[in-house]
């Protein structure tokens, strides 16, 4: 039996994720479910909702973030504003869960121990997928139950679309977990596909208001949007999601049957017998250069794709009088162009913060895995060791933002200086979050991964915060909220310099903590 032991392994997975899965499900599902209340406060009457729906659909930078508004009922607005974000959250969580219980287990050697028991060849993968299914089912249930008051059919459609997107990426991760020996790389590949799916959907929706662009249909996140919950549900789109889940599951099982435990399809090549690595900085570069290369390519491509849409962003959507009025109110051609660029640049900034946090926490990972200990037993001070990783975190985030700005400006064809400047103006906020990660790692290493929470919170505040009717004090928590909206607004040096100084202070405090505390391991 190739499935023997699946139940036990699934229970083990759920037991290990007993905090993570309920928390993600509650946050993801709860965000959507609570959206109706927030939006009702903002747009209480049907007229207000029709107005916001029309103006948002007319605005291509808004469409690229959230997609077009398909229905102007309260449920329709919730699906528009929170649907994409929730689908991405479910996808991220599903990728994490699946890789954690497949390739991570193999890489650490724990799988070998488990597989030596009465465990079938397909059991570990099945158990991981069941854990992801539990997560995505919980998300779907919370969304459906929370929005049932807005219409049962729409609520169910949105729940299934969000949970289904999670399963599309869970099964995608099941495939990438077979391809590489490194869990980090398997996660990276799945995340790259998720990024690509987001860019495709955003590009498609920026170009057309109907949601029917080819680019949108190439993206699983575009499918979730095109289920059109609360706006004449297209149930057949769910079949597309189901088909993707089934195909990817079949591929993953086929691959897993053809390889050894712990192995992949790419054999490890021998390395040099003598090394040239001589410094902690060179080692950090060697460890992080692959990730930095991936992020650089992603940001450059993303910039090029979005840059190509800048011109279209200023085209009037529809030729009716209402659309023309909205167009004028938004500042006409140059206003819309700048708004689109500013939105894109801010999005790149918030995502660059994820790179910066990951890069800082790489040093934390080196420490907890025990690899830092023998390094620090050499004539290598802690600060110098940390500096190797921090240079990449802080310099690398500058590099990828510059590449995104370059991509935007090149394919837009105008304003190279201002667009590049706008991209780099995101850096103080990115660095502040990276600095927070340094502080947590240096001063409270057990809580270092909370830096992910901070970066995620900023992303959530920037993406859906305005629609949650939160007080300004809450929105001000994100350093990105304090940056000038470039291009378009005037450069405000005050907040930029203040955030840079704050980032420097956080790094200094974190390094001071690192000097004083015990090395973990």
């Amino acid at each position, binding site marked *: 039996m190739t499935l023997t032991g699946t139940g036990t392994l699934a229970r083990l997975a759920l037991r290990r994720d007993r905090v993570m899965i309920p928390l993600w499900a509650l946050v993801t599902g709860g965000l959507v479910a609570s959206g109706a209340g927030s939006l009702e406060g903002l747009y209480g009457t049907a007229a207000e909702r029709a107005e916001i729906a029309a103006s948002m659909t007319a605005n291509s930078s808004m469409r690229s973030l959230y997609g077009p508004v398909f229905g102007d009922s309260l449920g329709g607005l919730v699906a528009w504003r929170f649907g994409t974000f929730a689908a991405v959250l479910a996808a991220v969580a599903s990728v994490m869960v699946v890789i954690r219980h497949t390739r991570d287990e193999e*890489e650490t050697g724990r799988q070998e121990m488990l597989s030596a028991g009465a465990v079938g060849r397909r059991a570990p993968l099945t158990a991981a997928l069941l854990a992801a299914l539990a997560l995505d089912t919980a998300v779907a249930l919370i969304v459906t139950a929370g929005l049932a008051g807005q219409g049962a059919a729409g609520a169910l459609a949105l729940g299934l679309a969000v949970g289904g997107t999670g399963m599309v990426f869970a099964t995608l991760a099941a495939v990438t977990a077979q391809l590489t*020996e*490194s869990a980090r790389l398997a996660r990276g590949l799945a995340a790259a596909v998720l990024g690509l799916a987001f860019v495709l959907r955003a590009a498609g929706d920026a170009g057309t208001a109907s949601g029917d662009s080819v680019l949108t249909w190439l993206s699983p996140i575009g499918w979730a949007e095109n289920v059109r919950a609360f706006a004449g549900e297209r149930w057949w789109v769910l079949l597309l999601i189901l088909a993707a889940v089934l195909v990817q599951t079949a591929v993953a099982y086929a691959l897993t049957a053809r390889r050894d435990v712990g192995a992949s399809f790419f054999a*490890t*090549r*021998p*390395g*040099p*017998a*003598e*090394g*040239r*690595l*001589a*410094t*902690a900085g060179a*080692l950090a570069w*060697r*460890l992080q250069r692959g990730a930095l290369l991936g992020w650089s390519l992603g940001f450059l491509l993303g910039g090029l794709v979005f840059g190509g849409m800048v011109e279209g962003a200023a085209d009037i959507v529809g030729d009716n009088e209402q659309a023309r009025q909205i167009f004028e109110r938004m500042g006409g051609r140059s206003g819309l162009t700048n708004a689109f660029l500013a939105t894109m640049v801010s999005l790149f900034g918030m995502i660059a913060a994820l790179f910066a946090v990951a890069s800082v926490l790489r040093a934390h990972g080196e420490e*907890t*895995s*025990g*690899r830092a*200990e*023998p*390094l*620090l*037993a*050499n*004539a*290598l*001070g802690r600060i110098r060791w940390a500096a190797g990783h921090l240079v990449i975190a802080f310099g690398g985030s500058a590099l990828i933002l510059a590449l995104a700005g370059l991509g935007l400006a090149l394919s837009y064809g105008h304003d190279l200086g201002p667009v590049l400047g706008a991209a780099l103006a995101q850096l103080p906020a990115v660095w502040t979050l990276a600095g927070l990660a340094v502080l947590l790692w240096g001063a409270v290493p*057990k809580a270092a991964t909370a830096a992910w929470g901070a970066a995620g919170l900023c992303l959530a505040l920037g993406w859906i915060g305005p629609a949650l009717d939160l007080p300004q004090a809450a929105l001000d928590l994100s350093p990105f909220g304090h940056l000038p909206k470039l291009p378009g607004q005037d450069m405000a040096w005050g907040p930029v310099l203040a955030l840079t100084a704050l980032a420097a202070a956080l790094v200094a405090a974190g390094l001071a903590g690192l000097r*004083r*505390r*015990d*090395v*973990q*391991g």
Partner: protein
Amino acid sequence: MTKAISVAGLHKSFGRTHALDGLDLTVETGEVHGFLGPNGAGKSTTIRVLLGLLRPDSGAAAVLGRDPWQHAVELHRRIAYVPGDVTLWRNLSGGEVIDLFGRLRGGGLDKARRAELIERFELDPTKKGRTYSKGNRQKVALVAAFASDVDLLVLDEPTSGLDPLMEEVFQSCVTEARERGRTVLLSSHLLSEVETLCDRVSIVRRGRTVESGSLAELRHLTRTSVTAELASPPNGLAHLPGVHDLTVTGQRVRLQVDTDKLDAVLRSLTGSGVRSLTSTPPTLEELFLRHYADDQHADDQHADDQHADEEVRS
């Protein structure tokens, strides 16, 4: 002789776990010092304090005459360390790691010596970190340590995972290091290894040093087993101090005696006329088992605590 390592009254707690509870340790320059104790006794914690990776809660520690916390980096130029569980970077070859460690210590490695050690340990330096077995990962760290020109070698259960042939290579490397005047602190569970290599040993239990001295001195503290065939039944043996587990079958006597009380027992035996006599000195195993077994239960408890801590961390 100056002290290579001197530690007095070292305390270190992790939450509720008291890993070190007033530990003392003295290692003379130029000796190979065995560092022994059951799992979870505090050996690795002590070593991490000596490397300046952990800061002790209280107590004094000096390595090569300096405070390891204050002067970690300068001290590390003169120290080579082999951890018990070597974790390597999955995409770096063994050779790269060896050279990296050499350069980070300052000055790099003697090429000829590096090549010789790779040859002796039969290590393939072109393999990547993820493809090495446990023993081979250990060899990477051992080659890096023995190829470096340092005053002090700190080895934390360095031979776990090595096969018997490699164990022999390791022992000859330690012997050579001593001949060249190096000091070695060797934490180990292999008693034969300790017996062969070490000049002196310290035994720790639950964060405290319970015995310290040369093997001869330690043996003196334990029991010798004696079997004798006598000319006439023994007389008054049971009343002698230090005699244990006495069994008398006719004229045949078997007993255990505290080694420092051996003299009186022999006098009493010769008083009855000795026909044959076997006296077995205590094996090292007996020596350690006496210390290890005493608080088996307490140590189990201790290990559970540590396990719980690890789970919280991961």
